[in-house]
């Protein structure tokens, strides 16, 4: 069940478009903001608010990189994997995180603290390598300074 709050937020977005189905992506983002990921029930609920079929909503949800259809941890680490970060050695940073967290890309730590994902270009190419944790971006990273960054996220 969507809470009244979530429902109102979705309906407010829907008013900004000529057709309310256009707010589908906003709706997915809103649910995710409240619940961290989008489960099957939420897909059905969004469909019912926007007069769509659940499959239509899911076809949108599964298309976009930033919508999670699987549970994620309290914090999501997104390591930039694009070419400028590759040139500056993001793979070393990623290998370190994999070791340090004991998980592969796409997985969540057993304590639910971190999910590790790759992200396409973060637009921080002059300060590579870069990553995001939740809504925050960090630049000029290496194996040595990434540790202090992780500490902010418990």
């Amino acid at each position, binding site marked *: 069940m969507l809470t009244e709050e979530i429902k109102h937020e979705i309906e407010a977005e829907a008013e900004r478009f000529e057709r309310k189905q256009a707010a589908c992506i906003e709706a997915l983002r809103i649910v995710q903001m409240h619940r961290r990921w989008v489960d099957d029930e939420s897909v059905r609920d969004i469909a019912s608010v926007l007069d769509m079929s659940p499959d239509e909503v899911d076809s949108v949800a599964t298309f976009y990189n930033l919508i999670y259809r699987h549970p994620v941890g309290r914090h999501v680490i997104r390591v930039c994997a*694009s070419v400028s970060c590759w040139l500056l050695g993001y793979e070393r940073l990623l290998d370190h995180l994999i070791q340090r967290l004991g998980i592969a890309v796409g997985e969540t730590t057993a304590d639910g603290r971190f999910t590790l994902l790759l992200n396409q270009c973060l637009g921080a190419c002059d300060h590579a390598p870069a990553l995001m944790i939740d809504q925050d971006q960090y630049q000029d990273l290496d194996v040595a300074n990434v540790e202090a960054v992780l500490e902010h996220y418990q």
Partner: protein
Amino acid sequence: MSERPLTANIRSNAPPLTVAEYEEAGGYQALRKALTTLAPAEVTKLIKEANLRGRGGAGFPTGVKWGFVPMGADAPRPKYLVVNADEMEPGTFKDRLLLEGDPHLMVESMILSAYAIEAEIAYIFLRGEYVLAGKRVGQAIDEARARGYLGRNILGTGYSLQIYMHMSAGRYICGEETALLNSLEGKRAIPRAKPPFPQTSGLFGKPTIVNNVETLCNVPHIVNRGVEWFKKLSRTKNGGTKLYGVSGKVKKPGVWELPMGTTAREILEEHAGGMRDGLQLRGIIPGGASTEFLFEEHLDLMMDFDTVQQAGSRLGTGTMIVLDDRTCPVGMVHNLTKFFAHESCGWCTPCREGLPWLERILKALEDGKGATGDLEEIRTHVKFLGPGLTYCPLAPGAMAPLGSALNRWRDDFEKHIRERRCPWR
């Protein structure tokens, strides 16, 4: 130092100008001037005469694009202006500077451009990752509304406009304008067939203009300072300034507003400080991931749309990615191809099937498992995923760096097969 209108208000490590500070610096005067003294068609005429060309990568003349929008009382309504702020081209970080650094310039540019096509609604389609830009532009929209620059009956002129922000859920193909419109309609971002072009049938089937951030940010300055001034900013026939960027192993990577037509050598050596000590330049991708490599012999070319095209590449976004002599070119194009394979929307077969296939071949080469015939396989794919054979420009864009790398560095590719390893590791 040459004039840099787009970034004049941007101070490093300081918050952007507030609405009052922006007004103090001459902001919103172009909007006032246009709304009170110029008809919409006259604004379009100015942009046409200035020959402002799209800074998103394609270089299409902006005024010509606007000229296709049906005008007057009989035009379908509402009409839309959409800002493409989905900066996701790898190696590109220029629009971000404008969005974070001077959000009121973005907002004024949107209102003015919307007025030129008599649009009632404008959307800014912003990368989901650009959180800070979203906050700052959102605040600028609110401040502009409170000052009467936005909303109903702007500055008492009878013109009304609403601006909404859409934070993208993330997909490279959204940068393609018709895919962007599908995404804005809440759908999967799959490109549409053209024609009809968005100018006549775009968002919700209504006349729509989609322009890049940097492109639109020129508009208030052209209205304020005039066509001749704009043309003189440039060293070439392609008018204005350009945001040029450099990333890779140079001493001072960054982004700078310079006269259009500044040479690659000046950008690399004077602004980016040259290569890091001990490294030699091997090649550059001049304008984001989807452009052909250029080489040492091209460094004195003026970086404008026409010159770069004549040299066999594209200016693209103007943000170059530098390959040095200690980095594997096969590894670099593998990274790029992996990106494009991941971001293919899956609609047309050559792109959906061809890109992952290429990615596997390149990975095998990197892993020392390349086979005789792999290079011919790549060559064949470069041909069949090329311009005109796919539904949209994504796959041809992916083939640009790959094909040019194979042409130039065939020896390096062959060495991977012969020695059954990546020689750089």
